Protein backbone atom coordinates (compact mmCIF):
# COMPACT_ATOMS: atom_id res chain seq x y z
CA UNK A 1 0.00 0.00 0.00
CA UNK A 2 1.03 3.58 -0.60
CA UNK A 3 2.06 5.77 2.34
CA UNK A 4 3.35 2.98 4.53
CA UNK A 5 2.80 4.35 7.98
CA UNK A 6 4.24 1.62 10.17
CA UNK A 7 7.76 1.57 8.83
CA UNK A 8 9.41 -1.78 8.97
CA UNK A 9 11.61 -2.18 12.03
CA UNK A 10 15.30 -1.33 11.85
CA UNK A 11 16.50 -4.82 12.67
CA UNK A 12 15.22 -7.27 10.02
CA UNK A 13 13.64 -9.90 12.24
CA UNK A 14 12.55 -8.35 15.47
CA UNK A 15 10.32 -10.31 17.83
CA UNK A 16 7.64 -7.68 17.37
CA UNK A 17 7.46 -8.17 13.62
CA UNK A 18 7.25 -11.94 13.90
CA UNK A 19 4.48 -11.62 16.48
CA UNK A 20 2.66 -9.20 14.22
CA UNK A 21 2.94 -11.45 11.17
CA UNK A 22 1.74 -14.47 13.13
CA UNK A 23 -1.24 -12.49 14.44
CA UNK A 24 -2.20 -11.28 10.98
CA UNK A 25 -1.96 -14.75 9.44
CA UNK A 26 -3.89 -16.23 12.35
CA UNK A 27 -6.69 -13.70 12.04
CA UNK A 28 -6.92 -14.12 8.27
CA UNK A 29 -7.16 -17.91 8.63
CA UNK A 30 -9.74 -17.59 11.42
CA UNK A 31 -11.79 -15.29 9.21
CA UNK A 32 -11.68 -17.76 6.34
CA UNK A 33 -13.04 -20.67 8.43
CA UNK A 34 -16.76 -19.82 8.05
CA UNK A 35 -16.35 -19.15 4.33
CA UNK A 36 -14.47 -22.43 3.92
CA UNK A 37 -17.15 -24.36 5.80
CA UNK A 38 -19.85 -22.73 3.68
CA UNK A 39 -18.20 -23.66 0.40
CA UNK A 40 -17.18 -27.21 1.39
CA UNK A 41 -20.57 -28.15 2.80
CA UNK A 42 -22.54 -26.45 0.06
CA UNK A 43 -20.61 -28.65 -2.37
CA UNK A 44 -21.21 -31.84 -0.40
CA UNK A 45 -24.00 -33.91 -1.90
CA UNK A 46 -26.91 -34.75 0.38
CA UNK A 47 -26.36 -38.49 -0.06
CA UNK A 48 -22.82 -38.42 1.33
CA UNK A 49 -23.58 -35.83 4.03
CA UNK A 50 -23.30 -37.58 7.39
CA UNK A 51 -25.07 -35.03 9.58
CA UNK A 52 -21.99 -33.33 10.94
CA UNK A 53 -20.03 -30.58 9.16
CA UNK A 54 -17.39 -31.60 6.64
CA UNK A 55 -13.98 -29.90 6.57
CA UNK A 56 -12.64 -31.30 3.31
CA UNK A 57 -14.52 -31.40 0.00
CA UNK A 58 -16.00 -34.74 -1.05
CA UNK A 59 -17.63 -35.06 -4.44
CA UNK A 60 -19.55 -32.27 -6.16
CA UNK A 61 -23.22 -32.00 -5.31
CA UNK A 62 -23.54 -28.23 -5.50
CA UNK A 63 -25.90 -28.10 -8.46
CA UNK A 64 -28.09 -30.91 -7.09
CA UNK A 65 -28.27 -29.01 -3.79
CA UNK A 66 -29.13 -25.83 -5.63
CA UNK A 67 -31.91 -27.55 -7.55
CA UNK A 68 -33.29 -28.93 -4.28
CA UNK A 69 -33.20 -25.47 -2.71
CA UNK A 70 -34.80 -23.95 -5.81
CA UNK A 71 -37.68 -26.40 -5.61
CA UNK A 72 -38.14 -26.16 -1.84
CA UNK A 73 -37.95 -22.38 -1.61
CA UNK A 74 -39.32 -21.15 -4.94
CA UNK A 75 -36.01 -19.39 -5.54
CA UNK A 76 -36.54 -19.02 -9.28
CA UNK A 77 -39.42 -16.61 -8.75
CA UNK A 78 -37.68 -14.96 -5.78
CA UNK A 79 -34.51 -14.36 -7.83
CA UNK A 80 -36.53 -12.82 -10.64
CA UNK A 81 -38.42 -10.65 -8.14
CA UNK A 82 -35.23 -9.44 -6.46
CA UNK A 83 -33.37 -8.77 -9.71
CA UNK A 84 -36.35 -6.63 -10.66
CA UNK A 85 -36.44 -4.85 -7.29
CA UNK A 86 -32.70 -4.22 -7.33
CA UNK A 87 -32.47 -2.93 -10.92
CA UNK A 88 -35.68 -0.92 -11.04
CA UNK A 89 -35.57 0.57 -7.53
CA UNK A 90 -31.87 1.46 -7.63
CA UNK A 91 -32.19 3.02 -11.09
CA UNK A 92 -35.37 4.94 -10.26
CA UNK A 93 -33.91 6.18 -6.97
CA UNK A 94 -30.70 7.36 -8.64
CA UNK A 95 -32.59 9.30 -11.33
CA UNK A 96 -34.98 10.94 -8.89
CA UNK A 97 -32.09 11.70 -6.53
CA UNK A 98 -30.02 13.21 -9.35
CA UNK A 99 -32.78 15.72 -10.06
CA UNK A 100 -33.01 16.74 -6.41
CA UNK A 101 -29.22 16.87 -6.08
CA UNK A 102 -29.07 19.14 -9.13
CA UNK A 103 -31.67 21.47 -7.62
CA UNK A 104 -29.95 21.66 -4.24
CA UNK A 105 -26.34 21.85 -5.45
CA UNK A 106 -26.61 23.78 -8.71
CA UNK A 107 -29.89 25.71 -8.91
CA UNK A 108 -30.45 28.83 -6.80
CA UNK A 109 -33.16 27.32 -4.58
CA UNK A 110 -34.00 29.02 -1.34
CA UNK A 111 -32.87 27.22 1.84
CA UNK A 112 -30.81 24.45 0.24
CA UNK A 113 -29.82 23.18 3.70
CA UNK A 114 -33.49 22.64 4.59
CA UNK A 115 -34.08 20.58 1.45
CA UNK A 116 -30.86 18.69 2.04
CA UNK A 117 -31.89 17.60 5.52
CA UNK A 118 -35.49 16.92 4.51
CA UNK A 119 -34.30 14.31 2.03
CA UNK A 120 -31.16 13.13 3.83
CA UNK A 121 -32.93 12.46 7.15
CA UNK A 122 -34.53 9.41 5.57
CA UNK A 123 -31.25 7.54 5.71
CA UNK A 124 -30.50 8.26 9.39
CA UNK A 125 -33.65 6.74 10.84
CA UNK A 126 -33.69 2.99 11.48
CA UNK A 127 -35.96 1.13 9.07
CA UNK A 128 -37.94 -0.28 11.99
CA UNK A 129 -39.58 3.10 12.46
CA UNK A 130 -41.25 2.95 9.00
CA UNK A 131 -42.43 -0.64 8.85
CA UNK A 132 -45.73 -0.73 10.70
CA UNK A 133 -47.33 2.39 9.11
CA UNK A 134 -46.18 1.24 5.66
CA UNK A 135 -47.73 -2.14 6.35
CA UNK A 136 -51.08 -0.54 7.28
CA UNK A 137 -50.95 1.89 4.37
CA UNK A 138 -50.11 -0.79 1.81
CA UNK A 139 -52.97 -2.92 3.11
CA UNK A 140 -55.39 -0.02 2.67
CA UNK A 141 -54.10 0.86 -0.80
CA UNK A 142 -54.23 -2.74 -1.96
CA UNK A 143 -50.45 -2.74 -2.34
CA UNK A 144 -49.74 -5.29 0.38
CA UNK A 145 -48.05 -8.41 -0.98
CA UNK A 146 -47.58 -6.83 -4.40
CA UNK A 147 -44.34 -6.34 -6.32
CA UNK A 148 -45.26 -2.70 -6.97
CA UNK A 149 -45.87 -1.95 -3.30
CA UNK A 150 -42.51 -3.24 -2.14
CA UNK A 151 -40.78 -1.58 -5.11
CA UNK A 152 -42.17 1.83 -4.16
CA UNK A 153 -40.91 1.40 -0.60
CA UNK A 154 -37.45 0.25 -1.74
CA UNK A 155 -37.17 3.16 -4.16
CA UNK A 156 -38.04 5.70 -1.49
CA UNK A 157 -35.56 4.18 0.96
CA UNK A 158 -32.81 4.33 -1.68
CA UNK A 159 -33.35 8.00 -2.54
CA UNK A 160 -31.71 9.74 0.46
CA UNK A 161 -28.30 8.14 0.18
CA UNK A 162 -28.18 8.36 -3.62
CA UNK A 163 -29.10 12.02 -3.24
CA UNK A 164 -26.28 12.50 -0.72
CA UNK A 165 -23.65 10.96 -2.99
CA UNK A 166 -24.71 12.82 -6.15
CA UNK A 167 -25.17 16.14 -4.37
CA UNK A 168 -21.64 15.96 -2.95
CA UNK A 169 -20.35 15.29 -6.42
CA UNK A 170 -22.32 18.02 -8.19
CA UNK A 171 -21.33 20.56 -5.54
CA UNK A 172 -17.78 20.31 -6.86
CA UNK A 173 -18.68 21.21 -10.45
CA UNK A 174 -17.40 24.76 -11.13
CA UNK A 175 -20.22 27.26 -11.20
CA UNK A 176 -18.79 28.90 -14.35
CA UNK A 177 -19.93 25.91 -16.39
CA UNK A 178 -23.53 26.45 -15.33
CA UNK A 179 -23.34 30.19 -15.89
CA UNK A 180 -21.87 29.78 -19.36
CA UNK A 181 -24.63 27.38 -20.34
CA UNK A 182 -27.34 29.72 -19.00
CA UNK A 183 -25.80 32.71 -20.82
CA UNK A 184 -25.97 30.69 -24.01
CA UNK A 185 -29.70 30.50 -23.44
CA UNK A 186 -29.96 26.93 -22.18
CA UNK A 187 -32.94 26.10 -19.98
CA UNK A 188 -32.41 24.50 -16.56
CA UNK A 189 -33.63 21.24 -17.96
CA UNK A 190 -31.07 21.50 -20.76
CA UNK A 191 -28.28 22.34 -18.30
CA UNK A 192 -29.21 19.30 -16.22
CA UNK A 193 -29.54 16.95 -19.13
CA UNK A 194 -26.55 18.04 -21.21
CA UNK A 195 -24.08 19.25 -18.60
CA UNK A 196 -24.56 17.88 -15.10
CA UNK A 197 -26.07 14.48 -15.80
CA UNK A 198 -23.08 13.38 -17.92
CA UNK A 199 -20.68 14.89 -15.36
CA UNK A 200 -22.32 13.04 -12.47
CA UNK A 201 -22.09 9.63 -14.12
CA UNK A 202 -19.40 8.25 -11.76
CA UNK A 203 -21.37 9.30 -8.66
CA UNK A 204 -24.58 7.93 -10.12
CA UNK A 205 -22.89 4.63 -10.91
CA UNK A 206 -21.55 4.38 -7.36
CA UNK A 207 -24.95 5.17 -5.89
CA UNK A 208 -26.60 2.66 -8.20
CA UNK A 209 -24.29 -0.16 -7.14
CA UNK A 210 -24.67 0.61 -3.43
CA UNK A 211 -28.44 0.66 -3.70
CA UNK A 212 -28.55 -2.43 -5.90
CA UNK A 213 -26.62 -4.36 -3.26
CA UNK A 214 -28.76 -2.96 -0.48
CA UNK A 215 -32.06 -3.91 -2.15
CA UNK A 216 -30.73 -7.38 -2.99
CA UNK A 217 -29.79 -7.99 0.64
CA UNK A 218 -32.87 -6.48 2.30
CA UNK A 219 -34.95 -8.72 4.58
CA UNK A 220 -37.09 -6.71 7.03
CA UNK A 221 -39.46 -5.15 4.49
CA UNK A 222 -39.36 -8.29 2.40
CA UNK A 223 -40.97 -10.34 5.18
CA UNK A 224 -43.19 -7.52 6.49
CA UNK A 225 -44.83 -6.42 3.25
CA UNK A 226 -45.07 -9.65 1.26
CA UNK A 227 -45.97 -13.29 1.83
CA UNK A 228 -46.69 -14.91 -1.52
CA UNK A 229 -43.99 -16.09 -3.96
CA UNK A 230 -45.03 -13.57 -6.62
CA UNK A 231 -43.69 -10.67 -4.55
CA UNK A 232 -41.31 -12.33 -2.07
CA UNK A 233 -37.70 -11.12 -2.43
CA UNK A 234 -34.74 -13.48 -2.37
CA UNK A 235 -33.52 -12.96 1.20
CA UNK A 236 -37.01 -13.69 2.50
CA UNK A 237 -36.92 -16.95 0.52
CA UNK A 238 -33.55 -17.78 2.08
CA UNK A 239 -34.85 -17.00 5.57
CA UNK A 240 -37.89 -19.24 4.98
CA UNK A 241 -35.71 -22.07 3.70
CA UNK A 242 -33.34 -21.71 6.64
CA UNK A 243 -36.11 -21.81 9.25
CA UNK A 244 -37.15 -25.16 7.74
CA UNK A 245 -33.70 -26.49 8.56
CA UNK A 246 -35.06 -29.79 9.81
CA UNK A 247 -36.94 -30.52 6.58
CA UNK A 248 -34.16 -29.50 4.22
CA UNK A 249 -30.67 -30.90 4.84
CA UNK A 250 -27.93 -28.33 5.65
CA UNK A 251 -26.04 -28.66 2.35
CA UNK A 252 -29.15 -27.48 0.50
CA UNK A 253 -29.58 -24.37 2.69
CA UNK A 254 -25.86 -23.61 2.48
CA UNK A 255 -25.92 -23.97 -1.31
CA UNK A 256 -28.74 -21.43 -1.44
CA UNK A 257 -26.84 -19.07 0.90
CA UNK A 258 -23.76 -19.36 -1.33
CA UNK A 259 -25.77 -18.77 -4.50
CA UNK A 260 -27.57 -15.65 -3.26
CA UNK A 261 -24.20 -14.20 -2.15
CA UNK A 262 -22.59 -14.53 -5.57
CA UNK A 263 -24.01 -11.32 -7.11
CA UNK A 264 -22.99 -9.06 -4.23
CA UNK A 265 -19.56 -10.65 -3.80
CA UNK A 266 -18.96 -10.31 -7.56
CA UNK A 267 -20.03 -6.66 -7.49
CA UNK A 268 -17.78 -6.04 -4.50
CA UNK A 269 -14.71 -7.45 -6.21
CA UNK A 270 -15.50 -5.79 -9.52
CA UNK A 271 -15.92 -2.38 -7.89
CA UNK A 272 -13.55 -2.74 -4.94
CA UNK A 273 -11.75 0.52 -5.72
CA UNK A 274 -15.08 2.31 -5.89
CA UNK A 275 -16.16 0.99 -2.51
CA UNK A 276 -12.90 2.07 -0.91
CA UNK A 277 -12.60 5.45 -2.60
CA UNK A 278 -16.23 6.19 -1.83
CA UNK A 279 -15.45 6.15 1.88
CA UNK A 280 -12.95 8.97 1.65
CA UNK A 281 -14.69 12.32 1.68
CA UNK A 282 -16.06 11.93 5.14
CA UNK A 283 -12.85 11.49 7.01
Amino acid at each position, binding site marked *: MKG*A*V*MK*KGKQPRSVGRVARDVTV*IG*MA*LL*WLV*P*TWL*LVVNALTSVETYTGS*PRWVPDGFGFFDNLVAAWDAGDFGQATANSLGYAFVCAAAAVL*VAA*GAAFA*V*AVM*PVRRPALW*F*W*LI*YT*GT*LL*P*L*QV*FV*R*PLFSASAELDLYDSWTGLAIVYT*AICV*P*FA*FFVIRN*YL*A*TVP*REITEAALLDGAS*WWRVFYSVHLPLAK*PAMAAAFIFQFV*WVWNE*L*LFGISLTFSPTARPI*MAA*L*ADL*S*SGYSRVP*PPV*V*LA*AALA*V*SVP*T*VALFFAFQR*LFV*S*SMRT*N*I
Partner: protein
Amino acid sequence: MGGLAEGRRVSSTVSTQPPVSVAGSAAGAAPRRRTRPGGPRRNLAAAAFLLPAAALVAVVLLVPFGATVYRSLLTDDLQPVFGGLSAYAKLLDDPALSLSLLNTLLWMAGTLLLPVGFGLAVAVMTNAQKWGRIARLAVVLPYAISGSAVAVIWGYMLRSDGAVNQMLANLGLESWAHDWLLEDPLNTFGMIMANTWQATGVAVILFLVGLQTIPPETVEAAAIDGADGWVRFRHIVLPQLRPVTYVVVGISLANALRTFDVIWVMTQGGPARTSETLALSMYRESFLLQRPGVGSAIAVVLTLIVLASSWLYLRGQGKAAR
Protein backbone atom coordinates in the same frame (compact mmCIF):
# COMPACT_ATOMS: atom_id res chain seq x y z
CA MET B 1 -27.56 -0.09 8.06
CA GLY B 2 -23.76 -3.39 8.26
CA GLY B 3 -21.76 -5.24 5.68
CA LEU B 4 -22.80 -5.03 2.18
CA ALA B 5 -25.64 -6.82 3.73
CA GLU B 6 -26.51 -3.65 5.39
CA GLY B 7 -24.74 -1.97 2.55
CA ARG B 8 -26.89 1.05 2.43
CA ARG B 9 -26.37 1.69 6.08
CA VAL B 10 -22.66 1.64 5.75
CA SER B 11 -22.78 3.56 2.61
CA SER B 12 -25.20 6.04 4.05
CA THR B 13 -22.31 7.82 5.63
CA VAL B 14 -19.90 7.81 2.75
CA SER B 15 -19.77 9.40 -0.65
CA THR B 16 -17.81 9.29 -3.84
CA GLN B 17 -14.60 11.14 -4.01
CA PRO B 18 -15.19 14.29 -5.99
CA PRO B 19 -12.85 15.32 -8.77
CA VAL B 20 -12.43 18.79 -7.32
CA SER B 21 -11.92 19.70 -3.67
CA VAL B 22 -15.03 19.89 -1.50
CA ALA B 23 -13.87 22.99 0.28
CA GLY B 24 -14.21 25.19 -2.79
CA SER B 25 -17.75 24.10 -3.45
CA ALA B 26 -19.13 24.85 -0.02
CA ALA B 27 -17.76 28.35 -0.24
CA GLY B 28 -19.19 28.81 -3.70
CA ALA B 29 -22.80 28.16 -2.80
CA ALA B 30 -23.62 31.30 -0.84
CA PRO B 31 -22.47 34.02 -3.26
CA ARG B 32 -24.25 32.28 -6.10
CA ARG B 33 -27.57 32.67 -4.40
CA ARG B 34 -26.98 36.34 -3.81
CA THR B 35 -26.07 37.18 -7.37
CA ARG B 36 -28.98 35.26 -8.84
CA PRO B 37 -32.13 35.61 -6.75
CA GLY B 38 -34.77 33.04 -7.62
CA GLY B 39 -37.54 34.46 -9.72
CA PRO B 40 -40.93 32.73 -9.87
CA ARG B 41 -40.09 30.81 -13.03
CA ARG B 42 -36.81 29.61 -11.61
CA ASN B 43 -38.57 28.49 -8.44
CA LEU B 44 -41.01 26.54 -10.56
CA ALA B 45 -38.14 24.82 -12.37
CA ALA B 46 -36.42 24.03 -9.07
CA ALA B 47 -39.64 22.56 -7.70
CA ALA B 48 -39.90 20.24 -10.72
CA PHE B 49 -36.43 18.88 -9.97
CA LEU B 50 -36.91 18.66 -6.21
CA LEU B 51 -40.46 17.43 -6.01
CA PRO B 52 -40.18 13.76 -7.02
CA ALA B 53 -37.45 13.01 -4.47
CA ALA B 54 -38.88 15.20 -1.72
CA ALA B 55 -42.39 13.82 -2.17
CA LEU B 56 -41.22 10.22 -2.22
CA VAL B 57 -39.15 10.65 0.93
CA ALA B 58 -41.86 12.66 2.68
CA VAL B 59 -44.73 10.29 1.87
CA VAL B 60 -43.00 6.93 2.24
CA LEU B 61 -40.50 7.74 5.02
CA LEU B 62 -41.22 10.92 6.96
CA VAL B 63 -44.99 10.57 7.28
CA PRO B 64 -44.69 6.95 8.50
CA PHE B 65 -42.05 8.14 10.96
CA GLY B 66 -44.53 10.68 12.31
CA ALA B 67 -47.25 8.02 12.39
CA THR B 68 -45.00 5.74 14.43
CA VAL B 69 -44.24 8.49 16.95
CA TYR B 70 -47.96 9.24 17.22
CA ARG B 71 -48.92 5.56 17.52
CA SER B 72 -46.40 5.10 20.33
CA LEU B 73 -48.50 7.46 22.46
CA LEU B 74 -51.68 5.38 22.07
CA THR B 75 -52.63 2.27 24.00
CA ASP B 76 -52.97 -1.22 22.54
CA ASP B 77 -56.63 -1.61 23.55
CA LEU B 78 -59.25 -2.64 21.03
CA GLN B 79 -60.17 1.03 20.82
CA PRO B 80 -56.78 2.75 21.20
CA VAL B 81 -56.86 5.83 23.40
CA PHE B 82 -54.19 8.31 24.36
CA GLY B 83 -51.89 6.57 26.81
CA GLY B 84 -49.08 9.06 27.25
CA LEU B 85 -45.81 7.25 27.82
CA SER B 86 -47.42 4.03 29.03
CA ALA B 87 -46.15 2.09 26.03
CA TYR B 88 -42.62 3.26 26.84
CA ALA B 89 -43.01 2.13 30.42
CA LYS B 90 -43.54 -1.41 29.11
CA LEU B 91 -39.89 -1.38 28.05
CA LEU B 92 -38.96 -1.44 31.72
CA ASP B 93 -41.96 -3.43 33.07
CA ASP B 94 -42.06 -6.30 30.61
CA PRO B 95 -39.25 -8.78 31.41
CA ALA B 96 -38.90 -9.80 27.74
CA LEU B 97 -38.43 -6.18 26.73
CA SER B 98 -36.02 -5.39 29.57
CA LEU B 99 -33.94 -8.34 28.39
CA SER B 100 -34.16 -7.00 24.84
CA LEU B 101 -32.87 -3.65 26.08
CA LEU B 102 -30.04 -5.39 27.91
CA ASN B 103 -29.16 -7.42 24.81
CA THR B 104 -29.11 -4.21 22.78
CA LEU B 105 -26.58 -2.78 25.24
CA LEU B 106 -24.53 -6.00 24.93
CA TRP B 107 -24.57 -5.58 21.15
CA MET B 108 -23.35 -1.99 21.53
CA ALA B 109 -20.55 -2.97 23.88
CA GLY B 110 -19.57 -5.94 21.73
CA THR B 111 -19.49 -3.75 18.64
CA LEU B 112 -17.24 -1.17 20.29
CA LEU B 113 -14.89 -3.90 21.45
CA LEU B 114 -14.77 -6.31 18.51
CA PRO B 115 -15.35 -4.92 15.00
CA VAL B 116 -13.83 -1.56 15.90
CA GLY B 117 -10.89 -3.12 17.78
CA PHE B 118 -10.18 -5.85 15.22
CA GLY B 119 -10.65 -3.34 12.41
CA LEU B 120 -8.00 -1.05 13.89
CA ALA B 121 -5.65 -3.97 14.55
CA VAL B 122 -5.95 -5.45 11.07
CA ALA B 123 -5.62 -2.07 9.34
CA VAL B 124 -2.52 -1.08 11.30
CA MET B 125 -0.84 -4.48 11.08
CA THR B 126 -1.41 -5.03 7.36
CA ASN B 127 -0.86 -1.47 6.17
CA ALA B 128 2.88 -1.84 5.54
CA GLN B 129 3.05 -5.52 4.62
CA LYS B 130 3.52 -6.67 1.06
CA TRP B 131 1.12 -9.58 1.53
CA GLY B 132 -1.15 -7.47 3.74
CA ARG B 133 -3.60 -7.09 0.87
CA ILE B 134 -4.30 -10.81 0.82
CA ALA B 135 -4.76 -11.08 4.57
CA ARG B 136 -7.00 -8.04 4.47
CA LEU B 137 -9.12 -9.54 1.71
CA ALA B 138 -9.95 -12.49 3.99
CA VAL B 139 -11.27 -10.10 6.63
CA VAL B 140 -13.11 -7.79 4.21
CA LEU B 141 -14.76 -10.56 2.16
CA PRO B 142 -17.70 -11.23 4.56
CA TYR B 143 -18.65 -7.56 4.23
CA ALA B 144 -19.92 -8.43 0.74
CA ILE B 145 -22.25 -11.16 2.04
CA SER B 146 -25.83 -10.44 3.10
CA GLY B 147 -26.83 -10.59 6.74
CA SER B 148 -29.22 -13.43 6.00
CA ALA B 149 -26.46 -15.53 4.40
CA VAL B 150 -24.12 -14.69 7.31
CA ALA B 151 -26.80 -15.94 9.65
CA VAL B 152 -27.15 -19.21 7.73
CA ILE B 153 -23.37 -19.78 7.89
CA TRP B 154 -23.06 -18.97 11.58
CA GLY B 155 -26.20 -20.86 12.45
CA TYR B 156 -24.55 -23.86 10.83
CA MET B 157 -21.44 -23.37 12.96
CA LEU B 158 -23.21 -22.72 16.27
CA ARG B 159 -25.98 -25.34 16.09
CA SER B 160 -25.82 -27.97 18.76
CA ASP B 161 -24.49 -30.44 16.17
CA GLY B 162 -22.60 -27.67 14.36
CA ALA B 163 -18.99 -27.07 13.44
CA VAL B 164 -17.96 -25.37 16.70
CA ASN B 165 -19.05 -28.23 18.95
CA GLN B 166 -17.56 -30.71 16.48
CA MET B 167 -14.24 -28.88 16.62
CA LEU B 168 -14.31 -28.81 20.42
CA ALA B 169 -15.03 -32.54 20.52
CA ASN B 170 -12.15 -33.26 18.16
CA LEU B 171 -9.85 -31.29 20.43
CA GLY B 172 -11.00 -33.32 23.42
CA LEU B 173 -12.87 -30.36 24.90
CA GLU B 174 -16.37 -31.87 25.01
CA SER B 175 -17.00 -30.15 28.32
CA TRP B 176 -16.70 -26.78 26.54
CA ALA B 177 -19.48 -27.65 24.10
CA HIS B 178 -22.73 -25.74 24.52
CA ASP B 179 -26.09 -25.30 22.87
CA TRP B 180 -24.78 -21.98 21.65
CA LEU B 181 -28.04 -20.80 20.12
CA LEU B 182 -30.31 -22.08 22.90
CA GLU B 183 -28.63 -20.77 26.03
CA ASP B 184 -28.96 -17.19 27.20
CA PRO B 185 -26.69 -15.16 27.00
CA LEU B 186 -24.53 -17.40 24.80
CA ASN B 187 -26.92 -16.94 21.86
CA THR B 188 -26.46 -13.17 21.98
CA PHE B 189 -22.67 -13.56 22.22
CA GLY B 190 -22.72 -15.96 19.28
CA MET B 191 -24.63 -13.48 17.13
CA ILE B 192 -22.32 -10.65 18.15
CA MET B 193 -19.48 -12.86 16.87
CA ALA B 194 -21.35 -13.42 13.60
CA ASN B 195 -21.85 -9.69 13.28
CA THR B 196 -18.16 -9.12 14.08
CA TRP B 197 -17.18 -11.51 11.31
CA GLN B 198 -19.20 -9.47 8.86
CA ALA B 199 -18.72 -5.92 10.15
CA THR B 200 -14.96 -5.86 10.77
CA GLY B 201 -14.33 -5.36 7.03
CA VAL B 202 -15.94 -1.91 7.03
CA ALA B 203 -13.83 -0.82 9.99
CA VAL B 204 -10.67 -2.11 8.28
CA ILE B 205 -11.41 -0.14 5.11
CA LEU B 206 -12.21 3.04 7.01
CA PHE B 207 -9.14 2.80 9.26
CA LEU B 208 -6.92 2.15 6.21
CA VAL B 209 -8.24 5.27 4.55
CA GLY B 210 -7.47 7.11 7.78
CA LEU B 211 -3.96 5.66 8.01
CA GLN B 212 -3.18 6.85 4.51
CA THR B 213 -3.98 10.43 5.43
CA ILE B 214 -1.25 10.42 8.10
CA PRO B 215 1.86 12.21 6.80
CA PRO B 216 4.64 9.59 6.68
CA GLU B 217 7.16 12.23 7.83
CA THR B 218 5.67 12.27 11.33
CA VAL B 219 6.22 8.53 11.68
CA GLU B 220 9.65 8.62 10.09
CA ALA B 221 10.77 11.40 12.40
CA ALA B 222 9.76 9.33 15.40
CA ALA B 223 11.62 6.34 13.97
CA ILE B 224 14.78 8.41 13.59
CA ASP B 225 14.39 9.52 17.20
CA GLY B 226 14.56 5.84 18.09
CA ALA B 227 10.91 5.23 19.01
CA ASP B 228 10.12 1.54 18.53
CA GLY B 229 7.04 0.22 16.70
CA TRP B 230 4.67 0.25 19.64
CA VAL B 231 5.68 3.71 20.84
CA ARG B 232 5.31 5.08 17.31
CA PHE B 233 1.85 3.55 17.09
CA ARG B 234 0.74 4.69 20.53
CA HIS B 235 2.02 8.26 20.40
CA ILE B 236 2.20 9.18 16.70
CA VAL B 237 -0.29 7.08 14.74
CA LEU B 238 -3.14 6.60 17.19
CA PRO B 239 -3.70 10.29 18.04
CA GLN B 240 -3.87 11.09 14.33
CA LEU B 241 -6.52 8.39 13.82
CA ARG B 242 -8.94 10.04 16.21
CA PRO B 243 -11.25 11.63 13.59
CA VAL B 244 -11.54 8.32 11.72
CA THR B 245 -12.23 6.51 14.95
CA TYR B 246 -15.30 8.67 15.58
CA VAL B 247 -16.63 7.78 12.14
CA VAL B 248 -15.93 4.05 12.56
CA VAL B 249 -17.51 3.93 16.00
CA GLY B 250 -20.56 5.86 14.85
CA ILE B 251 -21.13 3.72 11.75
CA SER B 252 -20.47 0.44 13.56
CA LEU B 253 -22.82 1.28 16.41
CA ALA B 254 -25.61 2.48 14.14
CA ASN B 255 -25.27 -0.66 12.03
CA ALA B 256 -25.24 -3.00 15.02
CA LEU B 257 -28.32 -1.34 16.51
CA ARG B 258 -30.28 -1.81 13.29
CA THR B 259 -29.25 -5.44 12.77
CA PHE B 260 -32.38 -7.42 12.01
CA ASP B 261 -31.57 -10.09 9.43
CA VAL B 262 -28.72 -11.81 11.33
CA ILE B 263 -30.85 -12.28 14.45
CA TRP B 264 -34.06 -13.11 12.63
CA VAL B 265 -32.50 -15.87 10.55
CA MET B 266 -30.31 -17.30 13.33
CA THR B 267 -32.72 -17.46 16.30
CA GLN B 268 -35.80 -15.30 15.51
CA GLY B 269 -34.92 -13.73 18.86
CA GLY B 270 -35.50 -16.97 20.72
CA PRO B 271 -35.66 -19.25 22.48
CA ALA B 272 -38.35 -17.59 24.59
CA ARG B 273 -37.31 -14.12 23.38
CA THR B 274 -33.93 -14.36 25.15
CA SER B 275 -31.85 -13.17 22.17
CA GLU B 276 -34.02 -10.29 20.99
CA THR B 277 -32.69 -6.79 20.54
CA LEU B 278 -34.84 -3.68 20.14
CA ALA B 279 -34.56 -4.01 16.34
CA LEU B 280 -36.30 -7.39 16.62
CA SER B 281 -38.68 -6.70 19.52
CA MET B 282 -40.22 -3.93 17.45
CA TYR B 283 -41.09 -6.47 14.74
CA ARG B 284 -42.39 -9.09 17.17
CA GLU B 285 -44.55 -6.66 19.15
CA SER B 286 -45.95 -4.92 16.06
CA PHE B 287 -46.61 -7.88 13.79
CA LEU B 288 -46.64 -11.11 15.77
CA LEU B 289 -48.08 -9.98 19.13
CA GLN B 290 -50.32 -7.28 17.61
CA ARG B 291 -49.23 -4.61 20.08
CA PRO B 292 -48.47 -1.75 17.66
CA GLY B 293 -48.31 0.81 20.49
CA VAL B 294 -45.49 -0.98 22.25
CA GLY B 295 -43.86 -1.81 18.91
CA SER B 296 -43.92 1.86 17.94
CA ALA B 297 -42.49 2.93 21.28
CA ILE B 298 -39.60 0.48 20.78
CA ALA B 299 -39.01 1.86 17.29
CA VAL B 300 -38.88 5.41 18.68
CA VAL B 301 -36.42 4.43 21.43
CA LEU B 302 -34.29 2.64 18.85
CA THR B 303 -34.37 5.75 16.66
CA LEU B 304 -33.15 7.91 19.53
CA ILE B 305 -30.23 5.56 20.25
CA VAL B 306 -29.33 5.30 16.54
CA LEU B 307 -29.43 9.08 16.12
CA ALA B 308 -27.23 9.55 19.18
CA SER B 309 -24.70 7.11 17.69
CA SER B 310 -24.94 8.69 14.26
CA TRP B 311 -24.17 12.07 15.76
CA LEU B 312 -20.56 10.87 16.11
CA TYR B 313 -20.09 10.98 12.35
CA LEU B 314 -22.85 13.46 11.49
CA ARG B 315 -20.89 16.34 12.97
CA GLY B 316 -18.62 16.06 9.94
CA GLN B 317 -21.49 15.83 7.48
CA GLY B 318 -23.31 18.76 9.00
CA LYS B 319 -20.33 20.93 8.18
CA ALA B 320 -20.34 19.64 4.62
CA ALA B 321 -24.05 20.40 4.22
CA ARG B 322 -23.63 24.02 5.17
